[in-house]
């Protein structure tokens, strides 16, 4: 595999007279300290990475983490303050204005978050834009633009105006405009960020399919972890301008480099989408308050478990019983186990993922998920949690949660 893009100690500080700020950065000052001292913003703080040919490299981080800045350093829309960025072995910071324009026009294309579709041009003329800048003759422009529009499924719309198109369609136009340039490198700046969830998933799917055919080197910026995990061959997690960790989805999920990454993985993505009720499972066996000790023992045996949750009328959670507690009762030939019911650890149905972990750690057995009327909805154990996450990621990298 050849390295397409390589960053070495890349630093970007916004503003004039960056000398002092750079010195402070080299002395190890943090972003906020540099801001306080000099009033300048550290955009990218010493990034090192390599992007190999044909892979999708995802930059992910919260807003202001420097991911868009880093993306724009690759095609020199922003010039680095120090360090080096090599595209196919050539340092962009040493290129002349003319060489940079050729780099942008021929070797790198870009897709934008808010599409940047020109409202005064037809769809096909929008797709032709880059070729027009490059000076391709009209007939060839038309031909290639039509083909690109077919590729993204908008062949019918070539003579429409942009205001007739939906957001998803506009971004297809943006994608066609980038693809038609035949550049090896594709930069995508949160391309699906402005689309609603359904369209976004569809576009991600299409990008994956398309990538199988075209095999571009893609640098993809997103703040959506799901998207990053789905698309990224390699993922770089950014924070305050620095890259915290680079790795495959599995590597990052299995071994977060530090606490920030760990929180990022759990706190942002899964917790937002999953709550206690959606990860809970219905236990294999349950017992009613009014049922007998022998029934309870029988069910425990059947479920291969040493405890059972006890429900009252209307599925109301009463508590749980353990085998150790009811075995003596069985010997004494007592029928009712109501005296040995223990209080269960419960958790409200809408608890977010992040808060489930600590509760689970403190629980004696499983956590019972209940709704606002104390009705039993299911249980969460360490195992159910891992299973759920595994299903969602479709991988097996989350052994340690």
């Amino acid at each position: 595999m050849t390295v397409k893009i390589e960053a070495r100690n890349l630093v970007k500080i916004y503003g004039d007279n960056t000398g002092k700020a750079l010195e402070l950065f080299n002395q190890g000052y943090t972003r906020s300290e540099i801001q306080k001292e000099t009033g300048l913003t550290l955009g990218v703080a010493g990034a090192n990475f390599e992007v190999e040919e044909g892979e999708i490299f995802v930059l992910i981080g919260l807003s202001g983490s420097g991911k868009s800045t880093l993306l724009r350093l690759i095609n020199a829309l922003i010039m680095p303050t120090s360090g080096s960025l090599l595209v196919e072995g050539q340092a962009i910071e040493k290129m002349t204005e003319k060489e940079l324009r050729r780099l942008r026009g021929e070797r790198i294309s870009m897709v934008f978050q808010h599409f940047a579709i020109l409202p005064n041009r037809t769809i096909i003329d929008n797709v032709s834009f880059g070729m027009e800048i490059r000076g391709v003759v009209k007939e060839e422009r038309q031909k290639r633009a039509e083909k690109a529009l077919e590729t993204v499924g908008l062949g019918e719309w070539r003579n429409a105006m942009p205001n007739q198109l939906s957001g998803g369609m506009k971004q297809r136009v943006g994608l066609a405009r980038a693809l038609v340039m035949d550049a090896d490198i594709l930069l995508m700046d949160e391309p699906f960020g402005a689309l609603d969830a359904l369209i976004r998933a569809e576009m991600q799917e299409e990008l994956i399919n398309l990538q199988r055919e075209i095999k571009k080197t893609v640098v993809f910026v997103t703040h959506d972890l799901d998207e990053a995990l789905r698309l990224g061959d390699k993922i770089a997690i950014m924070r305050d301008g620095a890259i915290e960790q680079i790795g495959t989805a599995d590597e990052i999920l299995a071994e977060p480099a530090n606490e920030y990454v760990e929180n990022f993985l759990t706190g942002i993505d899964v917790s937002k989408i999953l709550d206690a009720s959606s990860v809970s499972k219905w236990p294999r066996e349950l017992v009613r308050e009014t049922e007998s000790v022998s029934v309870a023992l029988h069910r425990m045996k059947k479920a291969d478990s040493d405890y059972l949750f006890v429900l009252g009328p209307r599925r109301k959670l009463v508590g749980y019983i353990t085998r150790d507690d009811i075995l003596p009762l069985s010997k004494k030939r007592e029928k009712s186990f109501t005296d040995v019911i223990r209080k269960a650890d419960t958790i409200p149905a809408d608890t977010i993922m992040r808060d489930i972990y600590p509760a689970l750690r403190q629980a004696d057995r499983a956590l019972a998920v209940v709704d606002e009327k104390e009705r039993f909805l299911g249980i969460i154990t360490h195992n159910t949690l891992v299973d759920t996450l595994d299903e969602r990621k479709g991988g097996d990298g989350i052994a340690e949660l």
Partner: protein
Amino acid sequence: MLNFDLPKLPLGDAIEWFVRWLVANLSVIFDGIRDGLNFITGLLRDGMLAIEPVILILIFGLIIWLLTSKLTALLGIVGLGLIWNVDLWPQLISTLVLVVVAVTIALIIGIPIGVLMTRSSKLEAAMRPMLDFMQTMPPFVYLIPAVMLFGIGIVPGLFATIIFAIPPPVRLTYLGITQVPEDMKEMAVAFGANDRQVLRKIELPLSLPSIMAGVNQCIMLGISMVVIAAMIGAGGLGGEVMRSVNRLDLALGFESGLAIVIMAIILDRVSRNIGSGKEPPLSRIIQYIKKRRLQKKEQQASSA
């Protein structure tokens, strides 16, 4: 009363000295400009006056129809016919030429200045007070240096009109371009565009509505200057207005005033419609031709 006994600053004298210096030393240039403009305006005026008024009115009507709508064209023809009927046709042509030439020159100078202001914050900072000055200085004042530089006649009228009408296109070009969304420009640069291409393919097309508003304002100010320019012999409808005031001739005053109003409304409607996103007959015709050509090409392609 306090009396500081400060000497009066020779501000006005300095300006007067400067203009006199210009007249004394650069009269070759100003004479050349005057002769050139006299020639152009004379040619245009004589050319239009050589055409039978009825035919010219119909030609104007056609142009109005192409750029606006049927109703506007019809009303325009009626209005122009009225002016012809009250024997103000030559004066109308003379004023129209003055306005068109002045506005054309104002735009040729003004729009590039507006563009340059977006490229240089220093120029922008320098132009801002100058534009304020040009817009708020009573327009009569321009007449004095205009006469000193160009003598009496239509050219000093042009000069004063240009100065008075130039700020709106400058300001609105600047405003339009600065309001072009940043991501559009970034997109163009990301596809390898240079500064000229960004200007031509992104900034100018996207700021066209604003620039056209500047053109419209420029025309309106140009017309409002017509009467004032008549004070230094620019003639035309403004000359008739001046004459009617001097003679207290209400009939002539009303007729020539109304003629100016009619001309102003026609020019306003026509210039307002360009670039406003509306589709006058002309753009529909162009689109039709384009479509036909496209269809022909596709037919050729499919038959081949």
